[in-house]
């Protein structure tokens, strides 16, 4: 029995999944986490460093690390990479000016060794705002082709304010991780 098997067994018992929420500032990461957790989303301050939220989802305990997006913080992101099962990259679909900045940061993240095995969900947030780019338009800008073969990933549109698309997104990332880590009974 290898170490990996033991780890798998321990994990399976707890059925815990560690998710890392990242993206540029003002993308809506905290709002998404709070919306998923059924909390009030009317007044959300810029995240100071990070928040950790545990929530139950489809029989799993999700430990969500919601990390602030500001520039000075990005160098600290790597402190949270360890043992990450899945990443949720959140994009402000209406912030067209910064979309390239957003792509560059995402690409930097995807070459991180510690995150090599993690599933990636890209949430094109703020779809409720007029002028927001569609997920397929954003996909083009993100140039994900070069990562396609080596990683499980998906892009979905959502709105943290209305809640649209969030469940679909979490559903996909959790089941993708679960099928990888846990053998379904």
């Amino acid at each position, binding site marked *: 029995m290898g170490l990996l098997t033991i780890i798998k067994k321990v994990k399976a018992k707890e059925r815990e999944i560690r998710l890392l929420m990242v993206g540029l*500032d003002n993308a809506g990461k905290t709002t998404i986490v709070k919306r998923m957790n059924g909390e009030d989303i009317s*007044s959300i301050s*810029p995240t*100071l460093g990070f*928040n950790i939220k545990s929530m139950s989802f489809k029989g799993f305990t999700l430990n969500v690390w919601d990390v602030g*997006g*500001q*520039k*000075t913080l990005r160098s600290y992101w790597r402190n949270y990479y360890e043992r990450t099962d899945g990443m949720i990259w959140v994009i402000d679909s209406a912030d067209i000016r910064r979309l390239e900045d957003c792509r560059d940061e995402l690409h930097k993240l995807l070459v991180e060794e510690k995150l090599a095995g993690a599933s990636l969900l890209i949430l094109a947030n703020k779809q409720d705002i007029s002028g927001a780019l569609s997920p397929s338009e954003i996909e083009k800008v993100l140039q994900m082709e070069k990562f396609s073969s080596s990683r499980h990933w998906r892009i979905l549109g959502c709105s943290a304010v209305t809640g649209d698309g969030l469940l679909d997104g979490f559903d996909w990332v959790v089941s993708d991780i679960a099928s990888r880590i846990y053998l379904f009974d």
Partner: protein
Amino acid sequence: MSSIFSVRKNPPKDVEGSPAEGGAEVEMANEWDRVTAAVQEDQTTGAQSGPQRTAYPPVSYRELLTYINQIDIEPLRSQLLVEEPPSGLFAKLCFCFGPPKLTGVLADERERCFAMAKIQFDENEEMHHRLLQTIFRKYTGATGTVARYGSHWEDVGFQGKDPATDLRSCGVLGLVHLLYLHHHNEQSAAAIYMLSRDTIQEFPLAPLSINLTSIALKALRAGQLSAEAKRRGSTWSALADFYVGAFYQFYLTWKAGGKTMKDSGFVRQALEKDLLSTGTTAATYEVTKRTLGASAAVKAEKESKGEELLLSTEVLESK
């Protein structure tokens, strides 16, 4: 109702923005500003282009209060949540007998506090621009008007090139408080700013300010500041000083504990819990009387010895 804000005990020494001061100095500042603007625009991408920029004279805290006092908050009334009894039976019971209810002028002022948190940055409002510009000047020591967009805003901790996006939760109140922090005690404000720009212990000043404003509003909503508001005869001042106290507490914890952004989430969480427990309210007001700086930090270090405030991941790793 006359002025609903009691004027602070120490009238500001520098009454800025007076018409007399305008002319030549602003002109000169403008000249210089065009030079720095050109440099900044070279350095930043996506910054607002064009050298034509309105010059905004600085605003003093006192002038700001007069302005705030005149805002018509009627249209916002329906959106304001000014009182929220804490959850849980015991807490509810305590609430019934607990903090005094705010009435009359004090209740009106409380509404205005929450209204200011709802008002978002308005490009057409000159005072909003003046406020934003004044904050930049007071903390960084810059002279003259800087660009509305650009990476220079990161110097005071704003997350991106547009500081307005960070204001979402506390609106203009987030900016007002940042100016008040400086007005309350310049030396302390300078110490805070310096620590925020430290190469190791840096933290984002403006987002922290917004987080602390949001915590202070929670305390106000829960009735935790009511007694102090009654004592002072001003809800506004009770809120603003609670915010300053929160900032000083943060500074002392951060500095003495050698904290970095890696700890920030934990520090914020512990601080919020501490600030919102009623037993600490008096201490939060007390600390505002101190002046932060080198000697203050040493004292704080002595005081906080043995005080294990934070659960850090390092505890697990250190084995």
